[in-house]
């Protein structure tokens, strides 16, 4: 949907001018998901409303409600992902309800944003994974946000601030970063990933001032089982990578962080991952 109809100008125009668009992540509405009871109640009401109205219903679905919240139409994602079918449904309901074109009700804004509520001494890293052809994935580009606590990023502080000093990054910390090193797949439950091996090593390559700042070279590799769907298969992500860290030794903070794959494969295709530090507002 994201790379399909929800990227098409005509669909975007109709949604903004005639509808109130909203998306809901199923995981957030079940079990220990963060959505509150009142929000879950509406989620369930719409699902049941579709069933009661003899409309299609499912977990990956489009639902249209009337201005009063009654479910009036629905589409399975396989149908909704076809732009012409989605457009036809949107236009049919605009006509049926007689909805005039108007202004976009919610100001559009970036949907991929850094996590909120981070501890003051935590750092946020932004990951981009891009398919480079050869198949094996959905293609395109995907993202992740990874937050490291001060205890975790301390793994990048050199035991001794001396050029040539080398050490292995705490495997738990490197695993937290590298578990996202796979291209776009249906399965995004990283708790199911299984490492054959993963390793990230650091070496001090420069110390500036009077030991105030240090630059590290990172190098690493991984081999990780990651199934494409939520069922077992033989897909494995493999990658080699290189990167750097610039540390402020006087304040024990990370100034810059960059890590990029130099070679990465999955399911017969190639991909590339880049991971970098994102500066956040002080109040984050």
């Amino acid at each position: 949907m994201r790379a399909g109809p929800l990227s098409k100008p005509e669909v975007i125009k109709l949604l903004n001018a005639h509808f109130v668009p909203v998306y809901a992540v199923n995981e957030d509405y079940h079990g220990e998901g963060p959505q509150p009871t009142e929000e879950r109640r509406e989620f369930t009401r719409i699902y049941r409303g579709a069933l009661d109205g003899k409309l299609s219903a499912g977990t990956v679905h489009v639902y249209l409600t009337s201005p009063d919240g009654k479910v009036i139409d629905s589409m399975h994602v396989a149908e909704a992902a076809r732009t012409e079918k989605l457009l036809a449904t949107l236009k049919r309901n605009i006509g049926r309800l007689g909805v005039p074109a108007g202004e976009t009700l919610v100001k559009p804004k970036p949907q991929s944003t850094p996590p909120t509520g981070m501890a003051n001494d935590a750092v946020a890293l932004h990951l981009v994974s891009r398919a480079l052809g050869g198949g094996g994935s959905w293609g395109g580009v995907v993202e992740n946000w990874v937050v490291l606590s001060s205890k975790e990023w301390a793994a990048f502080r050199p035991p001794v601030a001396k050029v040539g000093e080398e050490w292995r990054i705490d495997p738990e910390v490197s695993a937290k970063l590298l578990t996202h090193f796979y291209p776009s797949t249906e399965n995004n439950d990283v708790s199911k990933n299984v490492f054959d091996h993963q390793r990230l090593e650091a070496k001090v390559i420069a110390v500036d001032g009077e030991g105030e700042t240090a630059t590290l070279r990172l190098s690493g590799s991984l081999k990780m089982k990651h199934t494409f769907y939520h069922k077992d298969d033989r897909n494995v992500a493999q990658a080699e990578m290189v990167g750097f860290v610039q540390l402020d030794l006087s304040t024990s903070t990370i100034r810059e962080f960059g890590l990029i794959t130099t070679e990465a494969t999955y399911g017969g295709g190639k991909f590339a991952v880049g991971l970098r530090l994102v500066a956040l507002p002080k109040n984050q």
Partner: protein
Amino acid sequence: MHSRSHLNTVIVALVWAISPLGTSAETKKPIDSDAELPAWVSKRIAVLQPRPEEKRLDEIGWADDIRHALQLAKKHRRPVFLFTHDGRINLGRC
């Protein structure tokens, strides 16, 4: 031989020119120079970032949640478009 070599050079140049990634997104030989490493890595990470046409989802005025959407719908007499899914559409991981 010369013309074939020239043709190959032209093809490589064209691929570089028309591909937003060029070949910089994947190189089997990481840079040796320590001094140039940060710039080398940063440049390649920048090349990988989503392009505007890959972020059109951001051009849609999404409500915060279902209740917010229903409030706006009632107030402005508009229908709600709700997309439910597994994963994270905002990250492309879905």
